């Protein structure tokens, strides 16, 4: 919904939140449902209401638990049957510097300040530990905004008793905790309030009137940012860019002006601003964001522009270069198909409002930011938070390389008459075994990102994956696939829980980039082998349809299961008898060195 895309009109959202919610709920969308507990040290009512709008807009339907006013600490530390019953998928702790009990005063000695800092930190640390022990769900904790007045002026930043320095140090301790603990995320209010303007953000009118820790008009900024962290955790991040060229990545029209006259590089101020934007885009490769071109141009002109000596982005940085005269909506949909991504995983960046409008109308779900003028591009894309990072795995940095290899594989496949011959030529080697520590992060990440090849669409946190790995009641497998073009990394995950001689499949996912490579059969073979060893006689598979997982509707039939039931919503149950003479189904992948 356009009104909820960054850059948005905060006052409009506050005013119209009722009707916006009504409009959102009228859409025919299959939501992922999540239970979110908001524990506040100040009023949180509108933060929740506006957060709900942003989450609904990304396809997440939240139900909320809200702590009593300022009871964030008591709600966790003391027995709380209501919160236990609620069983949150995520807990957000919203506190501000007015919740700190030991802010320094000028009477304090250095030791007093240190003791106070320790006490303020411990107050929160015990809370987070208790949540970890009791609720086993991710926690988002915001850090602290700067104080809104400075008794000592600039010295507040340097004096040991300075409140600015105190907040900096406390925030650093929060960051250190986040770096060393799983499932714990910081919402950086220190940065957000600076962007917004601290005087406006911390306007004390709203504290004294309504006990809000921030101005009401700043709430959409806070809630939008919070929704970004949540969508990242719940697997709703964007994955790719589709970038226009003329007046987007460089100044001028290359077809008219010629490659020597486009504005890019250090010679002019306009050239510099485009170069800075190109650098910003290029850095996304290290996050695993896929770069593509979507431009109305002759392909040779597009390539010539990217080969300009001052162009920071080179043809090689892109996976697909769609430069032709077809409608951009068509190019975008084709690019998505070629990359095995959904169109809604793309961010479409184009200076031309008409092109943006076409994508909005023809390819709903694709992010189409109003990017403004070239000097605004970075700020708009950055604050929009399409690629909010909550986990950063080694695979992310390699992702562009993997997609490039995939395009090469497709080209190779087209040169073979026989698909089997092609698979043989890939020289595939798989590793399929129980979860091991180095891949837990990636396994959790995959469970949150897979939408299409996903039988149950269950999401797991890293903590849950770790528990399953160590629990004998489960059979768990990850599958890694290499071929002559490179390492695809961990691409498939299977989890089943034992119930006597039956194994119930909780999760079966695979990355679409290894579709039709026999990997699903290799996983099945290993699953059967593990089941045989564990004395399992029957495997029960479950398929729960979503808007995105039609492709695996009959997956269990292909694996040799028999359908045993189907309900009105299309949920199906399948059964597989584990026989001693099971014949391996994978033909082309050498698994575990065999």
């Amino acid at each position, binding site marked *: 919904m356009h009104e909820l895309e960054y850059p948005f009109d905060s*006052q409009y959202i*506050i*005013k*119209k*939140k*009722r*009707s916006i919610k*009504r409009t959102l709920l009228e859409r025919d969308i299959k939501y992922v449902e999540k239970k979110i507990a908001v524990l506040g040290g100040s009023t949180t*009512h*509108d933060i929740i209401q506006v957060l709900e709008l942003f989450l609904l807009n990304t396809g997440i339907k939240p139900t909320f638990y809200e702590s009593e006013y300022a009871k964030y600490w008591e709600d966790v530390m003391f027995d709380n049957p209501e919160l236990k019953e609620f069983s949150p998928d995520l807990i957000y702790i919203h506190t501000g510097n007015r919740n700190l009990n030991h802010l320094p005063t000028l009477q304090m000695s250095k030791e007093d300040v240190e003791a106070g800092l320790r006490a303020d930190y411990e107050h929160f640390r015990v809370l987070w530990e208790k949540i970890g022990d009791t609720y086993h769900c991710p926690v988002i904790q915001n850090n602290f905004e700067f104080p809104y007045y400075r008794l000592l002026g600039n010295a507040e930043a340097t004096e040991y008793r300075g409140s600015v320095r105190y907040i900096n140090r406390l925030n650093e301790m929060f960051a250190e905790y986040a770096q060393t603990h799983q499932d714990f995320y910081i919402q950086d209010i220190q940065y957000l309030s600076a962007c917004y303007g601290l005087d406006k953000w911390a306007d004390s*009118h709203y504290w*004294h*009137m*309504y006990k*809000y820790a921030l101005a*009401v*008009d700043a709430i959409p900024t806070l809630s939008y940012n919070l929704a970004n962290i949540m969508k990242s955790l719940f697997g709703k991040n964007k994955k790719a860019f589709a970038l226009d060229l003329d007046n987007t990545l460089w100044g001028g029209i290359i077809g008219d002006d010629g490659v020597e006259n486009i504005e890019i590089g250090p010679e002019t101020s306009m050239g510099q601003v485009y170069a800075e934007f190109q650098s910003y885009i290029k850095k996304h490769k290290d996050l695993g964001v896929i770069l593509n071109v979507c431009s109305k141009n002759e392909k040779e002109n597009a390539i010539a522009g990217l080969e300009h000596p001052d162009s920071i982005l080179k043809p090689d940085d892109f996976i697909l270069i769609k430069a032709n005269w077809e409608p951009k909506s068509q190019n975008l949909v084709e690019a998505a198909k070629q990359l095995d991504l959904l169109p809604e995983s793309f961010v479409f960046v184009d200076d031309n409002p008409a092109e943006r409008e076409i994508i909005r109308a023809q390819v709903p779900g694709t992010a189409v930011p109003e990017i403004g003028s070239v000097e605004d591009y970075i700020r708009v894309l950055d604050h929009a938070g399409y690629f909010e990072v909550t986990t950063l795995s080694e695979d992310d940095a390699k992702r562009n390389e993997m997609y490039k290899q995939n395009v090469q594989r497709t080209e190779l496949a087209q040169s073979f008459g026989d698909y089997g011959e092609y698979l043989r030529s890939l020289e595939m080697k798989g590793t399929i075994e129980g979860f091991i520590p180095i891949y837990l992060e990636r396994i959790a990440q995959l469970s949150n990102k897979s939408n299409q090849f996903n039988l149950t669409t269950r999401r797991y946190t890293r903590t849950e994956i770790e528990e399953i790995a160590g629990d004998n009641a489960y059979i768990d497998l990850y599958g890694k696939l290499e071929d002559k073009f490179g390492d695809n990394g961990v691409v498939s995950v299977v989890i089943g829980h034992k119930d006597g001689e039956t194994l119930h499949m909780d999760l079966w996912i695979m990355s679409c980039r290894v579709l039709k490579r026999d990997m699903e059969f290799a996983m099945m073979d290993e699953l059967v082998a593990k089941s045989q060893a564990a004395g399992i006689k029957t495997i029960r598979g479950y398929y729960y349809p979503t808007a995105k997982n039609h492709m695996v509707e009959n997956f269990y039939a292909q694996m040799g299961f028999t359908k045993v039931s189907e309900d009105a919503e299309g949920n199906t149950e399948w059964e597989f008898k584990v026989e001693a003479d099971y014949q391996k189904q994978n033909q082309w992948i050498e698994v575990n060195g065999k």
Partner: protein
Amino acid sequence: MSREEIFDKLNEVFRDVFDDDSITVKDETTAADVDGWDSHMHISLIDAVEEEFEIRFDMKTVVKMKNVGEMVDEIEKQI
């Protein structure tokens, strides 16, 4: 802007905030007369009125206002 014009604009704001096109406010209207006008919605309402008339109610004024008529008095003073 006349008092009637202020009321017209104010009605629009009330209808937007409470998502209810049947609302018509008068001088003597209070929170008790409008469905859903609780302390939380009051915050959104004040925010929306301030935006509409490009004014700012200071704290002393907000705590004093007894009904819509007094709100209009204050708006008249500021515009």
